[in-house]
């Protein structure tokens, strides 16, 4: 605020002929999205509470939608009997081996496509032709080739993971700033050192994004593969529970899958935080 009354202000004389002054109206409100920490928790709590109320008050039949409490009881019983552990172990093994194989192959091809012209020409043709095929459609063929056992399921997951990893790695390598490579060349860094110290670290954000996508695909494919040809694994368990109308157990399996997804997302988030702290 001014120290002088308007009439005594040193500027007042020049203002005499000015029109009446008005404060500038603030127009910058909104469009700044600030997440509230309690929002997600509250929404989750409300949904569970409503769901439980619907079950307890008899609004929906427990056969079609068991209450959260019933699902929790089923989860506890399945865990205590050891059955759930066996299914989880079978699925985790398939995801682990399939993801590791598919990711390793995808990283190798994606890196090659980013670094060498011939590999790029071959890789782009092959990836473009095969990537759009839903990999689960290949499971019957893979069963014919590899048998009904583990290899066919693992191969389905590996195939599903391979393509997004290849594309993410190739895109990441292709997007490495040219000036960084020229800088390294100007210091006579050998090819292998340029790949190791410049290309791979610069492509890492894209590669890790690919991991996030491929992990979701692996989860999707393991369930699908287990529903088609397995007697162990979360997918097989969910299908079996559905066939027997044990909807509390079916949803217990779905909860396990959701926790699986959350754990994988957390692991990749942890990797990103460790490896990409410089961003």
């Amino acid at each position, binding site marked *: 605020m001014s120290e002088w009354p308007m009439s005594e202000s040193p500027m007042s004389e020049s203002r005499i002929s000015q029109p009446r002054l008005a404060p500038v109206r603030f127009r910058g409100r909104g469009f700044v999205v600030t997440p509230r920490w309690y929002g997600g928790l509250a929404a989750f709590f409300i949904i569970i509470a409503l769901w439980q109320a619907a079950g307890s008050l008899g609004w929906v039949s427990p056969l079609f939608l068991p209450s959260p409490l019933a699902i929790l009881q089923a989860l506890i019983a399945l865990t205590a009997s050891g059955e759930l552990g066996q299914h989880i172990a079978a699925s985790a093994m398939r995801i682990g081996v399939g993801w590791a194989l598919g990711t390793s192959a995808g990283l190798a091809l994606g890196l090659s496509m980013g670094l060498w012209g011939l590999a790029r020409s071959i890789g782009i043709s092959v990836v473009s032709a095969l990537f759009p095929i839903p990999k689960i459609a290949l499971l019957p063929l893979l069963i014919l080739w590899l048998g009904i056992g583990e290899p066919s399921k693992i191969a389905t997951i590996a195939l599903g993971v391979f393509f997004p990893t290849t594309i993410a790695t190739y895109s990441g390598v292709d997007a490495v700033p040219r000036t960084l490579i*020229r800088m390294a060349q*100007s210091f006579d860094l050998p090819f292998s050192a340029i790949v190791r110290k410049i290309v791979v670290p610069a492509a890492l954000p894209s590669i890790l994004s690919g991991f996030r996508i491929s992990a979701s695909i692996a989860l999707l494919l393991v369930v699908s593969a287990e529903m088609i040809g397995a007697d162990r694994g979360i997918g097989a368990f969910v299908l079996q529970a559905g066939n027997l109308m044990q909807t509390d157990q079916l949803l217990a399996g779905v909860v396990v899958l959701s926790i699986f997804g959350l754990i994988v997302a957390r692991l990749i988030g942890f990797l990103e935080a460790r490896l990409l702290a*410089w961003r």
Partner: protein
Amino acid sequence: MTIIVERVSHRFDSLDVLADISFEVGDNEIFAVVGPSGCGKSTLLSIIGGLIEPSAGAVRVGGVSPDALNPITFVFQDFALLPWRSVATNVQLPLEHRDLPRAEMQALVNDALRRTGLVDFAEAYPKQLSGGMRQRVGIARALAVKPSILLLDEPLSALDGQTREILMEDLSQLLASTRVSAVYVTHNLDEALRLADRIAVFSRRPGRLREILEVPIPRSERMTPGAAADLAALHERLWSLIRTEAIDAEREVGHV
């Protein structure tokens, strides 16, 4: 250390970029190249540094110091720092593949950091630094390999006016205290007049060497009041050589 550029021409596909460029840079000389946008200044620097093979002509160098770890070394316009490495490890990068004892490598890094005023920022990451400090890291990295020739590609053009002024002073002192020949590409005539012994003026694309101007004032005296009139006259002369070409180049870019 001498650089001889002999009848160098270059084209990218059907685009002629440089036409028949010849000049020589002497021992410990700072040689600036100025010219309108797109006249091939940076391409010429890449050719001198061995990053682009010229379509015609050759570049030869002589008198390389036996101590030089990377005789021809670049300082880049956009700094070219690795964001995942600290200042010290960025400076260390060009030394890591050389057969140097750990202690010697560390001494070279420390010396480069000291000369560029970065000792207190050794553990910082590029994203934590201002533009001027990032370019200091680029310069420190170049000094760490004891170059005989420095190729500076518009090293100050990404910086604001004040930072540019400060860094120009520091660069001037560094070049004076280091036995090195340099080719300094710039748009900025003041930078060229402050730092260079001779200034080559290029025409618009395809870049041809129009004239080489000597700056007859010792580098150490260019900030003194007595030098102001002579530098202003040289500035006028340089601008008169470039002005029409720069306007034509600008219109040409506008039509692309």
